[in-house]
């Protein structure tokens, strides 16, 4: 037993167009949610860069493996560090030969000329001058560390390019949001215009226009909430599956498990809230544009 309500006046009287419009709205919301989640997870190009870039702390020759492992463990505990691994001199030699084949003679009869080193990878969010500085300042006082390789000037250029690339990617997200907003505004204006004869019928029969406006807005908030929730949920599922099955996504965007981190969940909730509020506000603004106060 259902009672037709002014909350759903658009759906009751113009069900067909409303379904089509909501499908379009859902698609745009899904696109925006997917983009936003991907940006949150990846930090733009941060994750990709953090996978490629390492800080190397070269140890003095003769530093025992236990000490090297201990230094790696301590570095791994630093906030900017995602991963720190000690490579002993033999591993360093193997890597050297893999990079420069045919130089086996350098070792000759004598001992391994290469020292061990600690390879440090930063978290995507710490791929910055500050992140590198924190690691550098932690390693510099360590007496076993001979040299710290952070990329020098090349790294500065890389970080500058990273900032530009991230700004460009976020601008893309803003563009998607602006398109979504423009789409909402146009849709809501069309909806209100379509409702003109019905509103005039109702107003002429003593139904206050303010009541219709507030009921419609409440309905738009609830319907918008469903659309945003469904679109965000589907975007999460799509990212989860893509990260599971596509290594490229895992490398550039991140792993699926990270979607449950508070750092991702909270902004996602904020995104949902904004999407809902936006739909309610555009509904009201569409109404006000068609039925100005005191007309």
């Amino acid at each position, binding site marked *: 037993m259902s009672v037709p309500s002014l909350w759903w006046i658009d759906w009751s009287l113009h069900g067909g167009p409303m379904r089509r419009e909501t499908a379009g709205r859902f698609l745009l919301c899904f696109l925006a949610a997917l983009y936003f989640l991907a940006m949150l997870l990846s930090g733009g190009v941060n994750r990709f860069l953090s996978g490629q870039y390492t800080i190397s702390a070269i140890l003095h020759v003769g530093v025992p493996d236990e000490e090297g492992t201990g230094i790696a463990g301590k570095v791994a505990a630093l906030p900017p560090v995602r991963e720190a691994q000690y490579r002993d001199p033999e591993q360093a030699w193997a890597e050297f030969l893999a990079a420069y084949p045919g130089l086996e003679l350098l070792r000759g009869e004598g001992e391994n000329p290469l020292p061990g080193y600690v390879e440090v990878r930063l978290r995507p969010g710490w791929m910055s001058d500050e992140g590198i500085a924190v690691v550098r300042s932690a390693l510099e006082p360590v007496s076993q560390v001979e040299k710290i390789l952070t990329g020098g000037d090349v790294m500065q250029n890389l970080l500058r390019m990273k900032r530009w690339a991230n700004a460009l990617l976020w601008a893309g997200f803003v563009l998607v949001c602006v398109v979504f907003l423009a789409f909402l505004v146009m849709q809501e204006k069309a909806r209100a215009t379509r409702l003109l004869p019905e509103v005039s019928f*109702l107003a002429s029969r003593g139904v206050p226009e303010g009541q219709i406006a507030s009921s419609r807005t409440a309905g738009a908030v609830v319907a918008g909430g469903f659309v945003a929730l469904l679109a965000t949920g589907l975007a999460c599922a799509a990212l989860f599956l893509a990260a599971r099955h596509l290594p490229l996504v895992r490398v550039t965007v991140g792993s699926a498990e990270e979607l449950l981190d508070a750092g991702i969940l909270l902004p996602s909730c904020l995104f949902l809230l904004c999407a809902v509020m936006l739909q309610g506000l555009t509904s009201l603004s569409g109404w006000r544009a068609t039925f100005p106060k005191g007309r």
Partner: protein
Amino acid sequence: MIEAFRVGAVSRGRTLWEGVDLAAGTGELWVVAGPPSSGKTLLLHILRGERRPDSGDVVVDGESLYRGSPEHNRRFRALSGVVPELLPAEPGKTLEEMFLLSALALGGVTDEERRARMGDLLSLVGLTGAENVVVSSLSVSERARAALAVELFRSPRVLFLDMFLAHAGREWADRMGALLRALAREEKTILMMERRFPDEWQAQIASSSLSAGPFTLYRVAAPPRAPKEKERQSQAPPVSGTAEG
């Protein structure tokens, strides 16, 4: 009780009429007859509280519709119904959707109740089973009767009809007249704007006609309400859903 005192209207820069007096009490059926372009629809809008008169005032239940509170005006419009000269029909709009709109105006009507009442009312005006018919495909007569059914859905206390009989057609004059008189007997006030008083109704005139501006006012007698016992014996359905004849 609707009372119009010395009401005047100006349209397109010329005075249409002024000094029109009218008083319609509860359970009365009035026909306001006037020539074409005399401002019948305008008078209807003024009496409904939708258009402020250029002179005079309209008082409902002792309070002015225009000088009183806006809430009184709104409440009166909520309690009254209007059958327009032509039922507005957007492309593809069905009668069921018009009833849905009426249900929204009334509020709190379940889908089941709406469907049941819609069926009853459409039968009452000779449009049985026309729920899903597109309004624009209806004839002028059918549209007029459909518009009446849509208005009756809200059981308005006061009913304004604009050129209803003219559009419904002579063949429906008796049946619709009986229906409207039955509504008047149910203590509903009915005001009809017509070009001329229908010949078929001459026998029903309650008192001598009155002249007000370009209009002639006729009060139609509603038959006295039958005693409750007799109503039970005849097993008549509720009066708002009954047509005589």
